[in-house]
């Protein structure tokens, strides 16, 4: 069996959760659908607006749509057979378990540091066995060499951990998408661990 067949086989039975469908979440979702993930569970309460289009995976005609519905539409345009479950709601400590407990891995893609903080504590405390891939530090431009992935047990944090989007920094497509791709790549690395394949040596 070829490696690509094995990869599709492994990924096709995996479920990834995505908490937030903004710049990080929408782009992570696209990368994972292209990679052949079995199922995505996406939660977001927000609506697509014009300023989102500078970095998020939405289109001008979708402004005013709920992000979770617009994202599902776009992901199905990539692969009509993709399994996409969406939750049109704000993720809270009250519903996080019901939404994400069946996931093999969860991606944190919230906007604010406060949300990232409670979600990290909640998931680490309630679901220590589910790897959590977070994004922290992706504002502005340049400084790609400072982007890193820090791992502490089942917690993976992608970004430079310093460039804050608040109060004045701007979010730009290249850096936001780069961190989103670091998250998506980390997800693949974790899900494909069982393959034991080191592409650097083959």
């Amino acid at each position, binding site marked *: 069996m070829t490696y690509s067949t094995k990869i599709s086989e492994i990924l096709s039975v995996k479920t990834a959760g995505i908490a937030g469908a903004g710049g990080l*979440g929408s782009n992570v979702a696209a990368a994972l659908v292209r990679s052949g993930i079995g199922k995505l569970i996406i939660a977001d309460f927000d609506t697509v607006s014009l300023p989102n289009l500078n970095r998020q995976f939405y289109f001008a005609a979708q402004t005013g749509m709920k992000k979770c519905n617009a994202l599902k539409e776009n992901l199905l345009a990539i692969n009509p057979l993709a399994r996409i479950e969406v939750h049109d709601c704000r993720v809270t400590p009250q519903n996080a378990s019901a939404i994400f407990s069946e996931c093999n891995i969860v991606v944190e893609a919230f906007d604010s540091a406060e949300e*990232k*903080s409670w979600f990290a504590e909640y998931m680490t405390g309630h679901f220590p066995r589910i790897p959590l891939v977070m*994004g922290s530090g992706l*504002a502005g431009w340049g400084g790609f060499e400072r982007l890193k992935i820090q791992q*502490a*047990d089942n917690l993976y944090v992608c970004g430079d*951990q*310093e460039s804050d989007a608040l109060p004045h920094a701007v979010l730009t497509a290249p850096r936001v998408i780069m961190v989103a791709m670091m998250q998506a790549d980390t997800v693949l690395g974790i899900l494909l661990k069982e393959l034991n394949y080191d592409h650097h040596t083959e």
Partner: protein
Amino acid sequence: MTITLNNRQENFFGQEMTIAEIMQAKSFHFRMLVVKLNHQLIKREAYATTLVKAGDRLDIIHLVSGG
């Protein structure tokens, strides 16, 4: 003492320090943090009272906005 801080060996004076003292020594001044000591999540309220000893593993992650 030597501890493993964010996957790197780091030396500090003294045999015991609180997490808050280590943060101060390393200038970790961000508002939102995830802190794990020997794989256990440490709540913010406990930073000033939790002791770190030689050989411990301490992970301090900064959370900043943007997503």
